[in-house]
Structures are given as structure tokens and as C-alpha cells.
């Protein structure tokens, strides 16, 4: 899976120590309400349709208007899937945006700005608003800047205008025509700019346009859940998990999903458990603070042996933390949430394809093992999108594991492997009883401590065996005869892979864990083979590395950690690996 670096297509040059990552990187920044998201959407879609590979990620402040939001768009001939620091084209829409993002500027960055709006050295003046006004409305300034980028990159004008028409068609002909005019003016400016000013990046090649998908982490989780047979979704809004909930609601009619916004996260998890009990397959989507409230419900799932699927999109804590930023800081929370002992499964996709597959699989695993399954993502992951090949939905199996009951049905029948057939009320002639108290096989409360109560404890513990045995194995990427092994999980996946491609990666491999708990039995051996093990984690204490050591006994030699609320950049990881 390693994306080998190809010298011939390498784009221009940079003042960076490590070689520059693929393609060119465009950063747009402005206050909330400036329409940064609209420019991003236009550019990413149009560039993709024109045959480029694209990637976009955003960072934003926790406010409705103002502040500084920025988006990074990478454009390349090859697939690009991670965040980089180096900026080739920078469009700040106001002074504050310039100040906040200037740290990532290189000597070669082309800064395109409206000189009447902000003061910055070495900028190329483009009066976006004036051009927009000439097209009919100063509000079209966004579209002008999208047009400028398209002009610089020689994007097909036909595709650009067609996309603009589709996007604005609901707003009427005047808006469509005004925006097309704005894009045209921008395009012309961009083309002229390319000829008159020496832009320091090379032209990147286009591929033949394909029917690829542009999918964000949010969308991948949602589609994956649907493919896994998810038929309901209960949630309370919380950034950055809300997107999954909103997406699910937008599909409710067509895909047949029962969606409810519950009064609080305690209600969410309990409603989901009620729905699982009655045979539904609900998805819960939340972030750290909401997940914390769900703890009692997770414990309940453990006791009543209910399936449960929770998507946990992490952001920095404690408490409200940095609401719109990213961190891989909630692994321990997911691992230890709930009192008492019961098995659970923690999955963490590394890219959107995995997010689709694992989210689908989460429902099968939860249903089969009657345990809570957590899908860990983070703000960076859910808000990031790039083009991927078409997803094959026919390969996804949605197995169900419910039993038609008979008159003598007992929900907690003792079995060899600890799994009791799961009936649901109304399906069969038996009764389905479930209880949060310690109970006997029929779910009647018991205090027979050394008899049935102990047998129930043993039964729940026994399930660990199968859950562990069927854990997803880690994926080894890179050199098989490695001496240096990088371990990582979740959203560091693409960043580590790209960083490896731009450094000397001989004898280096990357061991990626799509399942964080229980850890697959192969992990020990794979870790022991390395002379140096390096953990890359977007948190302060290397939570997963600690878990790995606890479970395998193998120590981690070096930890590359970041926890300022931002994701790792490719350059950062590459540099740290070069030093390590």
C-alpha cells in the first residue's frame, strides 16, 4: 500500500528539509460566514471531475460567525490523503486569517490577496470583491477566488461552470449567472496570473476523469453503517460527531432509517438499547463529552448482553476541551467506560474505505457477540475527504443473529461459549426478559452468589475468548524484513504512509491496527521482531502504545506524539521519523 515517491512528478520545490509531499497544496482562510466551505466544495468537486486527485481538510473555530476558519486542498496526479504543512497557494480573505496561517508559508508560497482588505508582504493583489461586484454582487467573491485557482490550474471551464450551475440552481437564474460571471472573471485572472507572475510550483498532470467518489470520514461511517444494516440512529448533537447524525437523517426517507434527536446522551444510549432489544440495529454517534454520559448505558449493555454500536468522534478534552479540534484522546475512555467486567470491541478506521467497511462490520460484530462495539474516529478524520474508487456494496454482508423463540425460551441460557441465542419480543412464542440486576437464565433477579450469579459472571467473561480470537489482525505496510516498526491507529494512517514515502524507509514498516481492542494475537510477534518500535499518536500519553505494552509485554521505544488540537502533518511525521 506504500505510495512510492515519484521524482518525475514532484512539484516544485520548497524550503522544507524533508522532500515536499505530492502535488500542490492550497490553503483558503477566512472568518466563519466568509464562505470558505463553499469555495472548498467548488474546488474539490471541480478539480476531481477534471481528473485530478484531491484531498481537503478543514480547521475551524468554535463559533458561528467570525474567527478564522481555514481549509487545505491538495491537488495531485496521484492519490493524496493527508494533511501537509507546506502551502503553495494561500488565499487569506482577511487580515486575521493571514496572521493565523502565515506560519505555514514558505518563501515560494503564492499569496493571493485583496490588497485593499489586508496588508501582507509579497502578496499578489487580486481585488476579489471588486471583481465580484462587477459580476453583480460583492458576495460572489468566493466564486471569484475559486475561478482564480481553476485558471491557475487549467481546469476545464466547462466543468467549472456546469458545477456552479448545479450548486446554485436552486437559488435562481440570477444567482447562477452572477456566479458564472464571477468564476469567469476569476478564471481569466488566474490564467493571466500564471503567465505574468512566476508561480513556483510546476503544473501537475491530470488523469483521465473516473467515476471515483468524494467521501468524507463522516459520510463513510454513515454509508458503512447503512451497509451494515443500520436501521435507526439516536443521538444528541455534539461536534464533531453531529455530521453522521445529520447524514443519517438526510437518508432517513430513502434508506428507511428511524432517526431521533434525544434529550441527552443518557437517553440516547438507553433508547438505543431498547431498540436493539426489540430487534432494531441503531447507530449512536457522539463525542467524548457525550460518550462520558453514556457510560452507565455501556455498562448496562455489558450486563444485559446487548449489542450496541457507538461511533465516537474524538476531540480534545477534558470536559469541553477544544470543541472543534482533533485528538486521539478517548481510547482509554472507550476502553474502560462502564463498571464491572464485560467484553467490548474497539475499532478505529484509518481511511474512508476502512471507515465504510468497519462501520458495516461493527453491526455484525455487535449482533454476533452481543457486545458494545465502538468505532473511534476524530475531528480530523470525519471532516477530511478525498477521492476514492467506487465502493462495492454487494460485498458487504449484513448478517443477523436473532432467534425465533419457543415457549421455553430463556434469554440467558448457559452455553459452552457463553453466547445465548438472542430472541426479541414478538418474534416467536417465547418471552424475552432482560435485567440490569444480576440474574438467572430467565433474567429473574438472583442473589444466589455462588451459584447462578457466579455462572452468569463466568458466562460473560467467557465471551472474551471468541471476541479475542476473532479480532481483526493488524496490517503490515512496507518492508517485511523491518528493524524499525511504526505502530499507529486511526487517522494517523495516511499521514504515516505518506511520510514513509518521502523518507529513507529501508527496514521500516508500519503496523496499523484497525481493531484496538481486543488486540489480535499476532501483535506480540510482530512487535518483537522489531529492534525499534515507534508509536505515532495524536494524544499526550500514547494511550494505544500503553495498551499494546500491557497486552503484549513489548515496550515502545519511541513515541511521536502531538496534542495541540491539530492533526499531524506529513512533514512533521517524516521529520520525526528521520530523527528517530
Amino acid at each position, binding site marked *: 500500500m506504500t505510495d512510492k515517491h515519484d521524482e518525475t512528478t514532484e512539484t516544485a520545490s520548497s524550503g522544507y528539509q524533508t522532500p515536499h509531499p505530492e502535488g500542490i497544496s492550497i490553503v483558503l482562510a477566512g472568518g466563519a460566514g466568509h464562505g470558505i466551505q463553499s469555495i472548498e466544495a467548488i474546488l474539490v468537486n471541480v478539480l476531481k471531475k477534471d481528473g485530478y486527485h484531491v484531498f481537503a481538510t478543514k480547521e475551524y473555530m468554535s463559533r458561528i460567525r467570525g474567527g478564522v476558519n481555514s481549509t487545505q486542498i491538495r491537488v495531485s496526479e496521484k492519490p493524496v490523503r493527508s494533511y501537509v504543512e507546506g502551502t503553495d497557494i494561500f488565499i487569506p480573505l482577511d487580515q486575521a486569517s493571514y496572521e493565523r496561517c502565515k506560519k505555514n508559508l514558505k518563501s515560494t508560497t503564492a499569496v493571493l490577496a485583496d490588497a485593499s482588505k489586508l496588508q501582507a508582504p509579497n502578496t499578489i493583489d487580486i481585488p476579489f470583491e471588486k471583481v465580484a461586484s462587477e459580476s453583480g454582487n460583492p458576495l460572489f467573491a468566493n466564486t471569484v477566488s475559486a475561478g482564480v485557482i481553476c485558471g491557475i490550474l487549467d481546469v476545464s471551464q466547462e466543468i467549472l461552470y456546469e458545477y456552479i450551475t448545479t450548486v446554485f440552481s436552486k437559488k435562481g437564474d440570477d444567482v447562477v449567472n452572477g456566479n458564472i460571471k464571477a468564476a469567469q472573471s476569476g478564471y481569466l485572472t488566474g490564467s493571466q496570473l500564471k503567465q505574468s507572475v512566476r508561480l513556483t510550483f510546476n503544473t501537475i498532470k491530470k488523469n483521465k476523469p473516473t467515476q471515483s467518489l468524494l467521501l468524507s470520514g463522516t459520510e463513510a461511517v454513515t454509508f458503512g453503517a*447503512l451497509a451494515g444494516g443500520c436501521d435507526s440512529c439516536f443521538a444528541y448533537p455534539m461536534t464533531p460527531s453531529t455530521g453522521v447524525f445529520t447524514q443519517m437523517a438526510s437518508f432517513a426517507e430513502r434508506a428507511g432509517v428511524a432517526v431521533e434527536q434525544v434529550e441527552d446522551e443518557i437517553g440516547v444510549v438507553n*433508547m438505543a*438499547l431498547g431498540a436493539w432489544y426489540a430487534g*432494531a440495529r441503531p447507530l449512536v454517534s457522539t463525542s467524548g463529552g457525550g460518550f462520558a454520559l453514556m457510560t*452507565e448505558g455501556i455498562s*448496562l449493555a455489558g450486563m444485559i448482553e446487548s449489542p450496541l454500536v457507538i461511533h465516537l468522534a474524538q476531540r480534545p478534552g477534558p470536559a469541553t476541551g477544544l470543541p472543534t479540534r482533533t485528538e486521539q484522546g478517548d481510547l482509554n475512555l472507550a476502553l474502560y467506560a462502564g463498571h464491572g467486567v464485560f467484553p467490548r470491541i474497539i475499532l478505529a478506521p484509518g481511511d474512508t474505505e476502512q471507515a465504510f467497511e468497519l462501520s458495516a462490520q461493527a453491526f455484525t460484530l455487535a449482533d454476533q457477540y452481543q457486545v458494545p462495539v465502538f468505532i473511534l474516529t476524530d475531528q480530523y478524520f470525519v471532516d477530511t475527504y478525498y477521492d476514492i474508487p467506487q465502493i462495492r456494496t454487494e460485498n458487504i454482508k449484513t448478517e*443477523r443473529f436473532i432467534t425465533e423463540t419457543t415457549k421455553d425460551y430463556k434469554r440467558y441460557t448457559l452455553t459452552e461459549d457463553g453466547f445465548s441465542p438472542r430472541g426479541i419480543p414478538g418474534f416467536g412464542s417465547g418471552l424475552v426478559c432482560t435485567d440490569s*440486576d444480576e440474574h438467572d437464565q430467565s433474567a429473574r433477579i438472583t442473589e444466589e452468589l455462588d451459584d447462578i450469579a457466579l455462572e452468569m459472571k463466568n458466562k460473560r467473561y467467557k465471551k472474551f475468548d471468541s471476541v479475542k480470537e476473532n479480532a481483526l489482525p493488524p496490517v503490515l505496510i512496507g518492508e517485511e524484513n523491518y528493524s524499525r516498526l511504526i505502530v499507529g491507529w486511526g487517522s494517523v494512517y495516511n499521514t504515516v504512509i505518506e511520510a514513509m514515502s518521502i523518507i529513507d524507509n529501508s527496514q521500516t514498516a508500519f503496523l496499523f491496527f484497525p481493531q484496538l481492542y481486543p488486540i489480535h494475537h499476532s501483535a506480540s510477534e510482530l512487535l518483537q521482531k522489531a529492534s525499534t518500535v515507534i508509536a505515532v499518536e495524536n494524544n499526550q500519553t500514547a494511550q494505544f502504545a500503553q495498551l499494546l505494552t500491557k497486552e503484549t509485554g513489548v515496550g515502545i521505544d519511541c513515541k511521536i506524539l502531538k496534542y495541540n488540537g491539530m492533526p499531524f502533518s506529513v512533514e512533521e511525521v517524516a521529520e520525526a521519523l528521520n530523527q528517530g
Partner: protein
Amino acid sequence: MDSTFEYKTDIAWCQGCGNFGLRKIVINALEELEIEKEKLVFVSGIGQAAKSPQYLDVNYFNGLHGRALPPAAGIKAANPNLIVVVESGDGDMYGEGGNHFIHAIRRNPDITVIVHNNMVYGLTKGQASPTTPKGMKTPVQTSGVFEEPINPLAMAISLDASFVARGSVGEFKLTKDIIKKAITHRGFSLVDVFQACVTFNKINTHAWFKKNTYSLDDSHDPTDRNKAFELSLQSSPWPLGIFYKNEHKPIFEEELAVYRNGDKTPLYKRTRDPKIIDSLLQQKI
């Protein structure tokens, strides 16, 4: 009493507890309604009242303290054909579960909520509950309760709950009829039932409830919300009966996209054509 709904076991309630009376009333109501047992689900939280489903031969989900209402709504969302009855105590429903109570009324799932209201915490040995009258001394409220008790009926009517009633274990027939009407009513039905805690509440005894309650007569029009609200504020004597009904409220599960066309097939019986996901994905090209 031998009933199809009765589950014979060692019952953990104190002798003389009002829970026994309410259990009998509920069983009789279910019998008279001739409910198919397999379609009936009892949901409860924690507390002595919440143990009720343990002593019934029904499907049940006995969950966490204060959390009976969310799973009850979840069950209706998963399968609207199930008849869902919640049994709970005043502490469980109005204290720990207060927020869910408010929002379940807003949500209006077609469930019946029977609250065993003995105005005290029994399971934890006699502390004040949200409905304990002012002045009552307890091991915690040693100088007497000073907080205003919750008025569940007034609260429910103010939220325009779909069905609001009060029964009393001492009034067998009246309470049984209320519960029957509550179960057949479409929408969220609250039946607050006065009962005595013989161990921890020495004030609100069986005799006290008998003496301090009266039944609403037929002249009360339960669709008159203002009148219902006025009655809900009355105490000593406390009215019993159906205070309020609103039969025109949208029902939670029926408003969910999956059932909006009137098809009540439970979710577990539905399969989704993978082509639907493919077609949604096509929009991402």
C-alpha cells in the same frame, strides 16, 4: 389469583406494601384487555416499584435507575406493534428520570407509564422523594422536607401530555379502569398511582390516602385542559380519575420516516435493497 400474567416467585416487597395492590390491579387490567402476552413489553428502571415486571409473566426490559422511558421509546421505534407499559416509582420517574419524563411527554410515544407514587424512597430506606410532602422528617431531611414537591399531573398537563390520570391502590376498580383506558389510549399516558409505603412513610398510609382522595365524577370533561390543570393543583382532598386527554397529538413512532407511510412492519423484518445505498453513493461522484 391465578392469571396468565402472574409470575409466581419469591417477591421482595414488604408485607402490606402498596406494590402488591397495584400488581393485582395491573394483572386484572391486562386480563380484561385480553392482551396477547407475546406482544406486551414491560419496561422499568430501578427501585422497588421497578421490580414489578419481575413478578409478571411478560416480556420485560428492566434497565437502569431513572432510565425506563428512553428504552420504552426505543422499543416502539423498533417495533410499533408492541404494547409497551412502563412501571416505575416516584423517585425513578420524577427524580433520577425527570429529564426523560419531560421529553418523553414531548416525544409522545404510544406507551403507558404507571408510576407507583408512595412519596418516599423505599429501596434506600426512607429518604425524601420528589413527591414527599413538605415537613416530613426522614433520616436525611432531619428537620423536615423544605422543598416544594413535584406535582406530576400539573407538570404533565402543562406539557400537554396525551393522557394524564391519577389512581390509588385503595380504589381497585377505578384504578384498573384508568389503566385499561391508558393502555388503549394512543400516545403517552401517565397514570400516577397513590400507594402506601408501609415501612418508611408513616404519614401517607393506606388510610390517609383513602381519607384524602375523592373520585372525579362524570361531569369532568377531560378534553378541557384548563379545568384539568385546575384540578391537578387540588390537594387534600386529592382528585382521582382521568384529568386530561389530548387525542390529537402526533405519535413519536408514527412520525419516524420508516413508518410514515403507515407500514408498521418492525425494523427487524425489513431488508434494505443494497441498490439504495449504491444510488445514494452515486451522488458522491
